[in-house]
């Protein structure tokens, strides 16, 4: 689900490049909400990295005799009906949710920036054709696409799975171990989500590049023979970085929420892995029986999303050059 961000952040003057960033940093530091959010996010990420390693419980080991129990000294966040420790699952889920958010956003970033940059730079027929593709994809209800992509590609015998196994082969001790399959499915979810959210990024980047390409420094570079790719990637895009950064930061929570939505429908993260979305979806079903199964993942997710949103808004405020000190 894409948001039409009709942001017309003006283009900074080329000569005030470096002071723009310093100004922006200063403004950002004054935005208390953004700063607090950044701190909380950092702590959250640290927790997700460390707790699964240092914690005393494994996210997948069941204890059927125990069943679901409320938070206690042994299990700080309680257990689920299969006896699995919720805290371990929540922090592992955090890893997965962050990974989904960041990686999918990077995918969307990569595709969107390239697409929009190329379209905006070349203009004319190329631009028309490329934007027509964006229009067509925009008009497509993304859910149908996700389902079909999943059915086509996310299976064991498919080419993508073999590709994945090839990539992790040198990195892990046994790439053929079937417990890597849920990880593959997650990566597939990243790709699917990234693959559908690059559209707005492309539009924004294109808008920026169109405004920038008439600048004198571009013509100067062309006249001394700098190639098109170099111009796009080394000169134009860095100047358009402001809105790109803002939009990227705001895409992460959007993607995390979409992953939660997909997990609710059964098409996102798969067992025995967990993600905040999956845990919250399961928790919402049994919230009258085992409220701790909902509270912890939902709070973690909500807090993270709040923070990303505040941070993103803060960045936007900071990078808007029209704000003067008042």
């Amino acid at each position, binding site marked *: 689900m894409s948001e039409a961000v009709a942001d017309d952040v003006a283009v900074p003057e080329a000569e005030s490049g470096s002071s723009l960033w310093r100004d922006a940093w200063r403004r950002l530091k004054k935005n208390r909400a953004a700063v607090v959010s950044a701190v909380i996010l950092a702590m959250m990420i640290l927790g997700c990295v460390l707790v699964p390693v240092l914690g005393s419980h494994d996210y997948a080991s069941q204890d*059927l005799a125990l069943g679901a129990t409320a938070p206690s000294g042994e299990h700080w966040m309680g257990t689920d009906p299969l006896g699995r420790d919720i805290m371990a699952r929540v922090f592992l889920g955090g890893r997965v949710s962050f990974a989904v958010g960041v990686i999918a956003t990077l995918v969307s970033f990569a595709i969107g920036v390239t697409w929009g940059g190329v379209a905006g730079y070349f203009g004319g027929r190329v631009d028309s054709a490329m934007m027509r593709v964006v229009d067509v994809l925009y008009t497509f209800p993304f859910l149908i696409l996700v389902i079909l992509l999943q059915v086509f590609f996310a299976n064991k015998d498919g080419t993508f799975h073999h590709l994945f196994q090839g990539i992790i082969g040198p990195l892990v001790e046994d790439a053929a171990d079937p417990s890597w399959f849920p990880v593959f499915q997650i990566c597939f979810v990243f790709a699917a989500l990234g693959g559908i959210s690059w559209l707005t990024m492309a539009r924004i980047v294109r808008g920026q590049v169109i405004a920038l390409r008439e600048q004198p420094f571009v013509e100067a570079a062309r006249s001394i023979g700098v190639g098109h790719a170099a111009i796009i990637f080394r000169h134009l895009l860095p100047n358009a970085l402001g809105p790109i950064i803002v939009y990227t930061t705001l895409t992460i929570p959007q993607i995390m929420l979409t992953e939660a939505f997909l997990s609710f429908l059964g098409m996102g993260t798969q067992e025995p892995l967990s993600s905040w979305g999956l845990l919250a979806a399961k928790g919402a*079903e049994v919230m009258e029986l085992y409220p701790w199964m909902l509270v912890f993942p939902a709070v973690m997710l909500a807090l993270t999303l709040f923070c990303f949103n505040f941070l993103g808004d803060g960045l936007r405020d900071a990078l808007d050059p029209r704000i003067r000190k008042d």
Partner: protein
Amino acid sequence: MGCGEKDERYYGTTSRHGREPTTLYLNNGQEPEYIDPTLTSESGGAFIVAQIFEGLVQQHPDTLAPIPGVAERYDQSEDNRIFRFHLRHDAKWSDGRPVVAGDFLYAWHRALTPATGARMAELLYNLKNGRGFHQGKLKVLKEKTTLSPKPDLKGGDALPAGQAVQVLLQLPAQTTSLPLPAPRKSIQAAELKARTGEPAAVEVVGLGPAGSCNGADDRWFEVKVGGAQGFLPGCALNESGPKPTVAVVERYTDLPTFEETAAEPGEGKAPVGFVPASQLEADLSVVGVRAPDDHTLEVELEKPTPFFLELLAYTTFFPVRKDVIERFAAEGRPDEWTRPDNIVSNGPYTLAEHKFRYEMTLAKNPHHYRADELKIDRVVVLEVGSYHATMNLYKTGEIDYIGQNLSLPQEFLPRLGRFEDFQQSMYNATYWYEFNVDQKPVDDPRVRHALDLAVDKKALVERVTKGGQVPATHFVPDFVGGGYAVQSEAERKAGKGRFDGAGHDFDPARGRALLKGAGYEIVKDDDGWRAKGFPDLEILYNTSEGHRAIAVAIQGMWKQHLGISVTLRNEEWKVMIKNLRDGRFQIARFGWVGDYNHPHSWLETFAGYSGNNWTNWEDTRFDQLLAEAAATKDPDLSMSRYREAEARLVEAMPRMPLYFYTKSSLIKPYVRGFYSNSANRHNVCWMWIDSSFDRKRGPVDNRPAMDPGTFPPPGSI
């Protein structure tokens, strides 16, 4: 809405504030695919059909015994093969016209006509020649035709017009890639170049002698394939191309006589030969059902069928109105005859309103012969798919009953158990995992048994499914009728429970030993067991919380007790079915709900010919036992054969049984005439609302709204 008194003994409110006193509100889960009796194949549609249509036989609401429906009495032959039903004279359709035997005849013929697309047509294979007709194997000659000895259609003797024939093969034909049965000594099989998956065109040049293939009667054909000439059996050939030109037929005389004596087999062997395919037509009179007059229906069955009356309670056997259906078919909108404005039905209720995917309203059928006795005038059937929403609606008193087609979520079951309006009963269904015995490592029965023995089924039902289910070591639920439950009880009492004890119950050590015997060494690691060299194994299940929980639990158990890591894969139902059909799985979640209260329903799914057998496991001896059991007149002997057949299955373990289902429901305390039964069939016509339920003391009057009645002892034929 849910304002008002909350009685702590019950889940939610018990006040009927804002509800009409003679209307029942319930939830049917989702929009039924069909409410056309001939076409219905899922439980949502079957429920609605059971309220608005009525068949020959009904089921007692409590015991499920057959009781009179449109048929008020029946005659039956000694060998359970011929039945004659006498219909009551006062049964009427909702438009006032009388229900006649011809309505049943039309419905059954309609089910057996392939173009109708009735998915449950297989139930009518119990009728004589039902299978042959439906599969297009039994035809009738249009005109007097010469039966030629060769495909060039020259020469031969003539058969009269209207002669029934059995089609053995239609030409052009091709071979399949099935492995060929071993040839008889005196006949050489044609040499074929090995072609996997690709059918090869076959030229049939002549006929060979009769034979058998995979336990069934067959015939050899003289063929030319590629450059080779020889003989191939019929089971290796199938038709290719859309328009057959020539057919190989055999004169068929086994037509229904509706008398106990069989038809004349005819002199000598039945003549076989070639006829033009254009001379063949379908004729429903070869099927064993006829209506000699408006109030008599005669049925001849293929073989003695001890469960035929139970079978008749199935919706596919209900009557439908030929004139209504044909009118809409002629107008090009065949499925619209079941819309409220168009539908004509003969049950206690009619379809008054249908809001697509939202709710249906049923109203009393004024022409029904028991309309005066019905205590519920209207039924509002909601179509709510979410468990949560359904439970909330029950809580606030907007629906009176949960459990029809949408079960209660399993996590809530223990908590609901303490409410008085909660009921739990056994349900005639088994949950199992299918093995694909063509795939390693489950091609080895020792591995299959090891996997079975390593699952703690008791823990599964107590901790995961929590619905009071019964752990299963075999396939047919213990309480199934027809004498099965009796024999099972008797064996247990004598201490000789066939499916209990060592080799059946949870035994991880034995499982490990079996796995070792199959060649996988088991070592003890620091975090438990590890099986060395065990190949990839995957459990496939259709997307659902319940199935996932079970799969995850079993995954954990196998890791813990056998040291193997399996993966889980879930797919939506349709995709999973396709994968099952194509054999692309190793272990898959499946199960079986009995269509009728007899073990045959479950055991038949293991037969080699069953379309519901995904396992690729076949055993001719089992198929034989099954056929023998069904044909045996003596019910006790028949049941022992069934049990023997089942024992064979348990030994081979092509499927891993997990548990027998239970059905949990919540039903408001003021609903009477509701009985938990193992088929989960609850017809509204027996129910009534007791508005003074909270003021009464003493035993509750839970008699049905009207007397179910019983069949008089059957007459004989």
